[in-house]
């Protein structure tokens, strides 16, 4: 068994286990060491992922793909998770299971990595399961806080059905196509109703992970209710992985004519719904959650163009990277502001907390695709791919949605910049603030580094 092929995943797994053990022995005050360990393990995974970036093969009998997309996931997912880790220490300082949080976080990361790399439907099922199960726990981590539990419960309820659907779908596809291996499925999924039903079921389940319509319902709840560091993680990492998984799946079935249309419709529905629902939110976390739904819709634009144009995959990955960073910036602002969430609470943020205000504006403007922020570059890649694929109508819908989204982003930014504060605004400080700075720096740097990033993104996938 080529164990070395899974070095990054193993690094994460072993770190998670080590954290579990460490959390068992460390005194409560010292649980932040778990965070450091987690960051270290993730960093190691990134390095290992980087070192395997040349690989272009299937491994473990075709159940795991080692290709550009996997490499991307192995760098971006642990990378962003490190930032998520940084948000947690002060946030969970009073939690008596502080250390275990990092273990769960790492298990969830592992699930995401597995999802991104899965080249077998069964592996996909388990990866989704691992990612989901840990996700529920992360969302409900504030066990003494009702809406955190509620968020976890909602996430679980939707997720359980989605996973059941996924299993059914996989079985139908397996049964009809005779294999679960992507290598064998590629292009050979039969065009009969049962297999198509199975395909649709898998898609829906992955939409759930991606937070796209109709599986989007958990996103705003988790964004609002989950602990902010967990929300930051859950609205980003599973989506990154799901985007890759979805792309891999769609690439398997080039013969299904209606598939791009289905994805495009889902994309349009998702961005529109996300934006419309975000429109009048008075809760910033929830607003970001809905915005994250709409961003999933944009991501689906690239999936809809999959196969039609070569730049669809780079566009997807590039966009998701930027989205992940920008979303993290937004949540790290919220985390650094101690979970401040009422929209009116952000009045006069600029004079009170200029860095946080600027970061929030940057993140939101990046979401809106204001150039030259990286969000624009991502969106630009998406638009190019979509237009090139002949889905101009989708691009127009996206344009309308972008305009719409600007409205609610400005609903936050406007008062934050133009109003006077009514009271002091407390911050969490510490590593949360460091993450804020770091993520903002990355977001800004991406503008300048876009060229190397773009050329490093893979153009196609295995198999």
């Amino acid at each position, binding site marked *: 068994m080529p164990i070395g092929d899974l070095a990054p995943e193993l690094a994460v797994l072993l770190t998670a286990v080590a954290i579990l053990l460490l959390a068992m022995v460390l005194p409560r005050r010292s649980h932040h060491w778990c965070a450091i360990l987690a960051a270290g393990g993730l960093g190691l995974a990134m390095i290992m992922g980087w070192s395997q970036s040349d690989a272009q093969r299937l491994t473990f009998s075709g159940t795991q793909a080692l290709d550009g997309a996997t490499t991307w996931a192995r760098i971006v997912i642990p990378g962003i998770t490190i930032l998520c880790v940084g948000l947690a220490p002060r946030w969970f300082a009073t939690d008596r299971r502080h250390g275990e949080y990092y273990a769960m976080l790492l298990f969830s990361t592992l699930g995401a990595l597995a999802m991104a790399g899965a080249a077998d439907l069964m592996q996909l099922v388990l990866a989704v399961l691992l990612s989901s199960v840990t996700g529920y726990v992360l969302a409900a981590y504030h066990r003494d806080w009702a809406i955190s539990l509620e968020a976890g419960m*909602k996430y679980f*309820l939707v997720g359980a059905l989605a996973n059941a659907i996924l299993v059914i779908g996989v079985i139908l596809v397996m049964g009809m196509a005779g294999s679960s291996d992507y290598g064998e499925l590629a292009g050979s999924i039969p065009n009969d109703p049962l297999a198509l*039903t199975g395909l649709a079921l898998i898609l829906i389940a992955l939409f759930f992970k991606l937070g796209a319509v109709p599986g989007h319902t958990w996103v705003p*709840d988790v964004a609002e209710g989950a602990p902010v560091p967990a929300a930051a993680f859950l609205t980003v990492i599973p989506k990154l992985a799901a985007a890759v998984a979805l792309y891999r799946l769609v690439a398997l079935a080039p013969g299904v004519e209606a598939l791009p249309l289905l994805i495009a419709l889902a994309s349009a529905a998702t961005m529109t719904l996300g934006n*419309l629902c975000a429109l009048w939110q008075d809760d910033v976390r929830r607003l970001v959650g809905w915005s994250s739904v709409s961003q999933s819709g944009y991501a689906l634009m690239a999936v809809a163009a999959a196969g039609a144009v070569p730049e669809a995959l780079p566009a997807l990955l590039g966009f998701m990277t930027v989205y992940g960073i920008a979303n993290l910036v937004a949540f790290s602002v919220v985390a650094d502001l101690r979970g401040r969430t009422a929209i009116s609470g952000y009045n006069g943020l600029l004079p009170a907390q200029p860095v946080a205000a600027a970061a929030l504006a940057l993140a939101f403007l990046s979401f809106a695709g204001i150039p030259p922020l990286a969000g624009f570059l991502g969106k630009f890649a998406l638009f190019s791919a979509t237009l090139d694929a002949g889905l101009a109508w989708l691009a127009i819908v996206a344009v309308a949605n972008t305009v719409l989204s600007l409205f609610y982003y400005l609903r936050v930014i406007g008062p934050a910049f133009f109003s006077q504060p009514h009271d002091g605004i407390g911050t969490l400080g510490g590593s949360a603030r460091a993450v804020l700075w770091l993520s903002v720096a990355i977001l800004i740097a991406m503008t300048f580094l876009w060229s190397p990033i773009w050329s490093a993104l893979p153009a196609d996938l295995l198999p």
Partner: protein
Amino acid sequence: MIWALAYFPVLAGLAIWAIGGSRATLGAMGAVAAAATLALALVAGGGTGRFVWSELIVLQAALPPLAQSVAILVPAILLPITLFATSQEDTRGLPRLVGLMLVFTGGMELVVIAGDLVTLLIGWEIVGACSWALIGHKWREQAPGPSANFAFVLTRAGDLGLFLAVMATMGATGSASYAALGTLDGVPLALAAFGLLVAAVSKAGQVPFAPWLFRAMDGPTSVSALLHSATMVAAGAYILARLHPQLSAAPGFGAAAIAVGLGTAVLGGIVALRQTHAKKLLAGSTSAQMGLMIATVGAGYPGVAVLHLIVHAATKAALFCAAGVAHRVSGSFDLRRMGLAASLPAATVLTAIAALSLAAVPPLSGGWSKEEMVKALEHAGPLLGALTIVSGGLSAAYATRFAVAAFGPGETRDARTRPGEMAALALLSGGALALSALWLPAVNEPVAAWIGAELPSGSRIGLIASLVAVAFGVLAGVHAARADSTDPTPEWLGLSALYEYAVIRPFHALSQTAADFDDTTIDQSVIRPFQALSQTAADFDDATIDGLAPGAATGAMTGSARAARGAIGIAVQGSAALAALGAGLGERLSDLIPDGTGRVTGMAGADLRRLQTGLAHHYYTILMVGFALAVGLLIFGG
């Protein structure tokens, strides 16, 4: 060199405005500048100039004798008027007045020297803008501001014709020079010719643009003097004369010019005759005289028109100066309150010369040039000649009436004349007198030859009729002047009564109607007919029956108020209404694009949000509905 004719007065004017100074200083500076301009005009003859803007637009200037005569005229008139202004007008703002008059002159000179339509347009509109500033000179008062705006907008409406001419000419030939204008034919020529006609007519205060001339009376007297003699108003007649060779080929051009010109000549005369406001009387007269000139151009004698322009300039400027003096002494422009012969004997004499010249009484200069015009129009048709004669009679009537009413017998007042005023009056009247030399063939022939004017030959009947009309007019004028202050008495064996009932009463009625028509042109009957009617009746009562000062003042004021509701009044109100409509409904409609979309979207947002009920089983339903649709699409959509 030739351009200096335009920019020297402008720069001098701005400099004088900036430097300022006492009356004497300003007078001296203004006079020197005017004299310098005059010198420039004298030496610049025959010169040409080019000023390249781009390959396509080249400003050109030329000064053929016809133009040079006017180029000389303008500063020659300005000089005395500067003297008049610096001695008569308020010291407050005097530097500005003198300076702007020079700028005004510069603009006029640009019109005169223009060798292409763009240059013409530039000068044309600068003249308009300066007239705005000059009419609104006394900006602290309520009336001049709106009047200045009125005048500018109304004349600019006519300027659109000039724009049209430029467009047509350049569109057809790629050049806007007069030479290019001459090569036009067909539709472009018609557009250019009628565009220019409209522009000229508006500047010259012809029907239907005449009302602005009355409003312009809110400006200082010196401004009126300049405006009505050698600049603004003259520009209209001048340009038609200057471009007559190029435009006459346009079908219908001559007829249109004659129609407008003669129509205005007659109506203007009637209006002038009816006026008791000294300056307005003169304003009506200006319309009429310009009408005659335009008609003459239409009849094919541009040179004659220019000669009359020159003569008229001296005459009219003198009369305005006289009106200004009379106003200063009597404190009012009401002719019935003047009667200054005893107080101002010298001024009376000078005024009489000018007035008789205006009345076309031989052997004064006005008589000669008017006779030439009568002859010219006779050539165009006997009826037209007859109308010209009638118009001449009218001018005789109102000129006489002005002179007799203003400088007729009256009580002696304490009237110290100012040297500047008298000098101006003397110069101008003297000029008018000197021009009488034109009666002599030895003078008029070389002059006509120089400017290229063809002098028409006329019939004897026409001459006699014309003289009779003038004589009749003078008599009527004298009578009208008296009738203003006294009840008509049946002397002269009932002839007076005959006059009264057969001529004067109908004349009054006609002129009242025409005045109303002229003042309000297309009237605002659309908007407030009854109010206007009752207003008119009240005016009539005030002005004719009471004959008292307050009444006259009211009359004058309502007169200007009525003028405000002229053609432009309607246009302005119409467009204001349209604008209000636009600002209201229209803007709301176009605002609906974003706002409406925004609102619908907002509502959609508020509604769609309710999908997120917070209830897990609804989420399940959403998920399953989505699934069903996806399956359906995949199976049946492919």
